[in-house]
């Protein structure tokens, strides 16, 4: 039993690592294609059919590029920072049930690395640790723009984490557990949390979704690495695979957040049937697509606007939401 469990866990870890590293690459392809279509362009076309092998070309480029450590950087921290971003992104995946459990050759597989009872807290915590990548990388880079980006990162971080935490308090009160599997089972019986409790769930869902954009640093809140203001922010001095690790971390984070949102609010994988599993993947695809969609459509906000939004608008709404949920549930 112990050995079997160990082997199963290792296999699951490896599969998740491989699948989501590959998905991060393919995610860049989808991003470029969808952004291009929305801007009436074609996107990558020349490498492979429909530019599909562009991902491989980019990978080769990233792996073979010279790894530059500039003169004045704090080298150990500079080298460490991208690893933090990428590894925390994948660590957060440990508590996410990607699919309902299924049987293969008479062996029941739980597609979750560790069903710990504080699942969502662990995920949010680890994703919060992921911010140390941009923060340390930006501060160690000996570059004005990187430093600005690190400062922005810290400011953004304390703003959105409040909203994330408070917004999921109401659903947690409904479910009475922090495990994502319990969330899923609760929603089988009581319907999707979005529609629960007279709109409380819906407000929580919207708040969490907005905060997810800040969490992953996607476009309306893409101010940590804004090309048109501060070059690439913390990524300015990075090159080659170190920069690639930041990239993989960012895209893996997008995928994992896209898993977490439906699992928390939109019924997850449902009753565990094949249809439910496909529905979950469809929801994930929609949320990932939405990340790209907003990037094509919306402008970026300033850091002070983001802080204004988080502290003065979203946080009061979240607190009121929790109060209303508590009053209704009493």
């Amino acid at each position, binding site marked *: 039993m112990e050995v079997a469990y160990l082997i199963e866990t290792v296999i699951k870890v490896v599969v998740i690592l491989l699948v989501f590293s590959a998905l991060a690459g393919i995610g860049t392809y989808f991003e470029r294609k*969808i952004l291009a*279509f*929305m*801007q*009436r*362009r*074609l996107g990558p*076309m020349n490498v492979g059919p429909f530019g599909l092998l562009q991902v491989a070309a980019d990978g080769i480029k990233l792996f073979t590029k010279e790894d530059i450590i500039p003169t004045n950087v704090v080298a150990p921290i500079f080298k460490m920072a991208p690893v933090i971003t990428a590894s925390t992104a994948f660590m957060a995946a440990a508590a996410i049930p990607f699919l309902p459990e299924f049987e293969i050759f008479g062996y029941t597989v739980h597609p979750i690395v560790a069903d710990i009872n504080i699942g969502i807290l662990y995920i949010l915590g680890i994703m919060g640790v992921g911010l140390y990548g941009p923060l340390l990388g930006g501060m160690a880079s000996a570059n004005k723009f990187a430093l600005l980006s690190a400062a922005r990162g810290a400011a953004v971080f304390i703003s959105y984490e409040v909203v994330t935490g408070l917004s999921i308090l109401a659903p947690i009160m409904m479910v009475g557990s922090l495990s994502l599997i319990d969330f899923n089972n609760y929603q089988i019986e009581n319907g999707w949390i979005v529609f629960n409790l007279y709109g409380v769930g819906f407000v929580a869902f919207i708040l969490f979704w907005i905060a997810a954009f800040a969490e992953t640093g996607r476009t309306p809140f893409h101010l940590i690495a804004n090309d048109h203001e501060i070059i690439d922010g913390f990524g300015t001095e990075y090159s080659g695979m170190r920069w690639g690790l930041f990239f993989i971390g960012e895209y893996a984070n997008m995928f994992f957040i896209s898993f977490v949102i439906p699992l928390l609010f939109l019924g997850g994988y449902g009753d565990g049937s094949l249809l439910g599993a496909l529905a979950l993947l469809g929801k994930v695809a929609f949320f990932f697509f939405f990340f790209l*969609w*907003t990037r*094509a*459509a*919306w402008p970026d906000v300033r850091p002070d606007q983001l802080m204004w939004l988080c502290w003065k*608008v979203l946080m009061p709404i979240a607190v009121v939401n929790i109060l209303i949920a508590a009053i209704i549930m009493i």
Partner: protein
Amino acid sequence: MKNEAFNDRNVSSDGYFKVDIAEYPTDGWAKFTRVVRRTFRAELFVGLWVVLREMLKFDIHTIQYPLEKMPIGPRYRAVHEMKRLWESDAERCIGCGLCEKICISNCIKMDTKIDEHSRKEVSEYTINLGRCIFCGYCAEVCPELAITHGGEYENCSEQREHFIDYTGMLTPLEMMANGTQKEFEGFGAITPHEDESVKKTPLSY
């Protein structure tokens, strides 16, 4: 027409209107209502719809350049071409030297001589493309429509001077045989499809 309208330099007097910008809110309640109004006017979704509509219409404007090219205007001024006569395939250039004279960057150099039939013949004709500014005066001044600008913009060489020489500019004889020499369609051009009605002069008896 009277000139008053154009002589009036006081731009602020009329014809201009101020952009309709609402009064900036001063007190807290007005600011709050503005935020609420903007939030529920759902302008963000208008932006989302616009880009989604463009994606669904799939009206791609990309030109995949080496494979596809934009049509180029007939009056585009790329590297020069020397035309031949439709009737006899002889060079149109009569060696008048007008192009050499008018060239404002002095890049055209030509030399003429009297040939064995006592006719003026162009013995040497060079355009220094390194100096040429492609103003088009030479083509405009040419009385025979002999020198024109072509549409070939994809030249590649170590120096601009080496883009093309006189024999390269001259319409190849195969093109004359096929009747595919292109006339310049801009100012001074012959009427369209005139070349189709031209008969070759019977020179041999």
